[in-house]
Structures are given as C-alpha cells and as structure tokens.
C-alpha cells in the first residue's frame, strides 16, 4: 500500500481485499481476554479533527489503542487552530511531536492532500470536505461482505453485488469513496437522488444514475441512505423536507419493496424521519450498528497495513 490513505482511488482491488481480509482476522481480537495487539507499540497516532465527530474520532482512537499505539487527540476547537494557526503550522507541530500517522478530518476538500505534503508520517483521511472518506467506504464494504458474502469470504471482493446509494450525493464524501471502492471490488453501483443533488458530470463516474427510488429498490442487494442536511433547503436543492421524504425517504412502505435478503445501511448520523424512518433504522435489515463496530476493526486493519511494517513500496 502507499504511505497514505487519502482517497479510495489509492487502493487497487488486491489492496482493498487485503484490508477486508485483515479486518476479518482482527475481528476475533475483540473476543479475547486481552483485546490488544502489540503491533504498533511505540508509535504515535494523532487524531487531527477540525470537525466535530466524536464517533469517527473515538473509532480511530480505539483502533489505534488496540494495536498498542499512543494516541494524541488534537481537536480544532480551543486549540491553537481556533486562534488562527494555519494547517501548515499545525502539521509542523505534529511533525515535531513525532507523529507516525495523522488521522485528519477537515472541512475543506483536499486538506488531507495538503497535509501529506507537510508531514513525513502517514496521513489517513477521515473525511475532507465533500471529497472522500475512504475508511467509511472500507467499513461499508466489509459490512456488505460480512452480511451478504456467503460462508467463505476471504479473498473475495463484492463481485456482482448491487448497491444503491440514495441521498445528497453531491455533497457526500461517503458517496464518492463508496462509488470508487465498490467499483474496484466489482459491485454494481446505482445512485439515486433528485437531479439537484447529483454531481455535475456524474456520467463520468463508474456507476449508474436514477431519479426513481421505488424502481431501484426492487432490484438491489444493498440500499445505503445518506444524510440530508436541512440547510440544503435554503439553497434550493429541494423545496421542503416533506417533499424530499416523500420522494426519496426510506420508510417502512419502501422497505417492503426490497428483496428479502437486502440490507439497509447508513453511515450516520441519521436524520430519523427525513431520509430514513425510525422503524427502518431499527429493523433487522439495518446494519447501522454493525457498521460502527466494523469501523474499529477496519481502521485497525488500515493502521496495521500502513504502519505495521517497514516504509513504503514504490
């Protein structure tokens, strides 16, 4: 693997399958008396979070600690960043602190790219603006394989799996990473959203597009709901929350259209009652809770593969 994980496009198919297989192996660690591995002992992982995200941050923190790494949490609020320190200066501070890896979440697309130019350690993109969130896509893929991948999963991708992603694709870094990763793993991706929330030039992406949710639900194995922010209404992306929910919300009625085996996913946090109804979120089809626990082991796998060996290969 490369030194950094900034975009899902950084991963070849064999890289991605390796991560999933490694995560599958690491899953058993949680069941052991000692829920830790010594692999990253003596290494320092810094969580550099410019956006509030307790869930993702604690997920990375747990992953790093289970590999015996030291974790330093650097949150933007109340730090030198709030006083106007630039990203570059923060990067230099982390370098001086000896960070072996920096996990960065930032509101600007490309922040992880820029950071990678200023630090010698590994950079893990935990979400940059509306660009990408590769570990989310990895844990989503892992969850799909876990639930639908059959008995012998090791070495497998997601070939032929039909995945439908619904919601504010335009502003979603989760969607971008998922489209790239799922395509590399052999899945067929369908994006469903109102035209205003579809990215410009989406026809150049490795996926199909539809505005008709009901038609797509009948023939999908996975439906992934994306969060819709209410602020999008004031920028005229859709007229009202009510209209959005009616046309693109996953309620119990729509859930009944799904094939029997199909699962419902959501990267969280959810707007219950907007893009997803409460009874859907709580149904047995929903993998939302599993996605969270899978997040830790997938991030452990990524940290191990990035940091657990010698430097990078060409």
């Amino acid at each position: 693997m490369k030194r950094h994980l900034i975009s899902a496009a950084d991963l070849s198919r064999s890289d991605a399958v390796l991560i999933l297989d490694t995560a599958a192996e690491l899953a058993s660690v949680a069941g052991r008396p000692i829920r830790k591995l010594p692999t990253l002992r003596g290494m320092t992982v810094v969580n550099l979070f410019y956006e509030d995200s307790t869930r993702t941050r604690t997920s990375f923190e747990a992953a790093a600690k289970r590999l015996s790494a030291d974790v330093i949490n650097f949150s933007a609020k109340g730090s030198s960043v709030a006083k106007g320190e630039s990203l570059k200066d923060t990067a230099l501070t982390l370098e001086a602190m000896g960070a072996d890896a920096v996990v960065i979440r930032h509101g600007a697309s490309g922040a992880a790219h820029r950071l990678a130019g200023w630090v010698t350690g590994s950079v893990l993109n935990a979400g940059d603006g509306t660009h990408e969130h590769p570990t989310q896509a990895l844990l989503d893929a892992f969850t799909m394989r876990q639930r639908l991948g059959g008995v012998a999963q090791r070495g497998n991708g997601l070939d032929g799996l039909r995945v439908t992603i619904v919601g504010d694709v335009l502003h979603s870094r989760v969607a971008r990473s998922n489209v790239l990763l799922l395509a590399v793993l052999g899945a067929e991706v369908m994006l469903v959203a109102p035209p205003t929330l579809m990215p410009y030039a989406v026809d150049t992406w490795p996926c199909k597009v539809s505005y008709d949710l009901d038609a797509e639900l009948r023939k999908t194995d996975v439906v992934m709901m994306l969060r819709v922010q209410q602020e999008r209404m004031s920028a005229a992306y859709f007229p009202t929350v009510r209209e959005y929910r009616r046309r693109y919300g996953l309620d119990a009625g729509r859930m009944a259209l799904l094939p029997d085996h199909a699962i419902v996913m959501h990267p969280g946090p959810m707007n219950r009652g907007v893009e997803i109804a409460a009874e859907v979120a709580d149904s047995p089809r929903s993998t939302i809770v599993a996605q969270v626990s899978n997040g830790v082991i997938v991030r452990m796998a990524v940290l191990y593969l990035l940091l657990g060996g010698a430097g990078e290969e060409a």
Partner: protein
Amino acid sequence: MCAMRPEHEPKRAVSGPSGDQEAVGEDSALERAEASAGKTVLTPEEIRRALSRIAHEILERTHGGEGVVLLGIPTRGVPLARRLAARIGEFEGAPVPCGSLDVTMHRDDLRLRPARALQRTEVPPDGVDGKTVVLVDDVLFSGRTVRAALDALNDLGRPRAVQLAVLVDRGHRELPIRADYVGKNLPTSYREMVRVLLTETDGEDSVLLGERAR
C-alpha cells in the same frame, strides 16, 4: 501504484536466520526453484514415521492427551498439527482439539519489511485456559517465531503448560527456546536452507536441504 502482496523475500547476503526460514505466507517461485535444487533429507515415509512417533510421545508425556490442544503455526505448522491431531485421535479413539495461531502481529522483526498479510488464528471452542498447548511448526531455527507464538498465546489466555513440536530442528538458536518433540535433528550451516514441503500446501511431502542463492 503497487498492490500489496503477501511477503516476498529477496535473498539476502546478510546472515540471520530470523527472516527467511520462518517466513509466513506463500514462498516465491524463485525460492521454490532454488530450494528444490537440494538434497532430500526426509522422505515421505520418514515424515510419516516421525509424525507417528511425535504423536505417541505427546500421548506419553501428557497422560494420554488429557487437556491437550494442538495449535499449528501458519503456514505449514497448520497441516502438521492437523495430521498429529488425526494420529492422536486414531490412537486414543478420542479427538484432540486442533487449531492455528497466527504470530504475524507479535513478530519482533515487523519493522524490517512491509506489513504482511495476516494468517488465520482459529482457537478451538474450549479455548486454551488451563490446557496443555502444543505449538506445532515445521522448522525450528532461531526461535523467534516460537517466542512470537508464546506472546500471541499469552493474549489468548493462560495455558497450564506450553510445549513445542517441530518436524525439523536445524539448530542456530538465538533465544533460549527448545522443542519438546522433534521429528529430525538436522545440523545445518547458516548458508544452508531447509525446505519443508507438505502435500496440503505443496503437493508432496519432503524435506530438502539446499544452499541459499547468492
């Protein structure tokens, strides 16, 4: 960008057995070709007899296999452990629990090469607490793999005792580790390479001794 591969070992001029001999993961075609150019030091028949003998020894020293759990160290320790388990099961008429123990995450040479793919760790349902765990591996060389296995085992629970069974002991220990059960003692020089082939992984049973390439 390059794909991540399970560990590929270039031949090294630097001595130190802790690398090549105990590589986990698939060996390269180069290594196979080099190693097969060597002399056979154990034939399939000799391997079969050695395993039977070890199985009997295990039964002797553990009061008939009471509380014994076999854990093979991947890659080739695993089929060996299964064969031993099968033999012991035949002799005693009762199955002995068998599994595998991946040591990758506990190796002391992790930072010397790119991160390797993990192998399977499968612990039998009754676990290892209070059991006599017999670690099984194909070749005992520097002892570092076994040390890593002891660390990994420690995280799984607290066995009553830990023993070690190996098909070949080639000497050159770098740590105070010894095997309880040895198929064959094979004095070697550092320059030599011991190669174990098993039907389950390589299509045939054989132990070869060859020179490392320069």
